[in-house]
């Protein structure tokens, strides 16, 4: 599964995307796995209320299923316009 990071999440983790081997059933399960990888991940995912998530380019919630998902993206609240 491809995991993408944007804005300060990308900066904190240090890479824009990576391929992750995971059996995570939900977004939150994936977050827990990532938190356990390294300190920079734990820092980026310390407060998920400050984050938003998209699964296969659709905004969703942290309890969303990852069944069949190809791409998950984490980023701060959007500031377009």
């Amino acid at each position, binding site marked *: 599964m491809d995991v993408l990071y944007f804005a300060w999440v990308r900066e904190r983790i240090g890479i824009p995307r990576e391929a992750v081997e995971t059996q995570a059933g939900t977004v939150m399960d994936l977050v827990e796995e990532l938190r356990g990888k390294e300190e920079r991940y734990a820092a980026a995912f310390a407060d998920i209320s400050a984050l938003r998530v998209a699964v296969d380019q659709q905004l969703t919630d942290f309890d969303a299923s990852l069944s069949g998902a190809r791409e998950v993206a984490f980023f701060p609240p959007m500031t*377009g316009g």
Partner: protein
Amino acid sequence: MRVVVQEAPFDFGVEAAAFAEGRAVSGAVVTFTGIVRDVDGGLQAMEIEHYPGMTESALTDIAAEAKTRWSLEDALVIHRHGRLEVGEMIMMVATAARHRKDAFEAAEFLMDYLKSRAPFWKREVTADGADWVAARDEDEDALTRW
């Protein structure tokens, strides 16, 4: 309906004229343009990051939603990314409807939604460095009125 995401500048006059040209059903065209402004006198540039692929689909979904809620003949959204200087145009929306109320309301709806639901992130560059712009509660609250 047209959605454009690009780094290059766009010509607001040309886009607005082309959008309004040849309308027969629509009696009203509304346009809005967002410009990089320097609030505190120290802004050197605005950098806009986006999520290629999702940006286009999110904007298309928002424009399609506007068409279901208002009697719109057409809608246009152009949004830039990359580095923009103070005074440059960031984005524009245009709506065409039979009556002006639909055109105005749909344009406001598009603006409110693309601020908080399209994957763009702004970063302000000043002499002190660069900082990500925090999302404002008012922008999220603005969605509840629709």
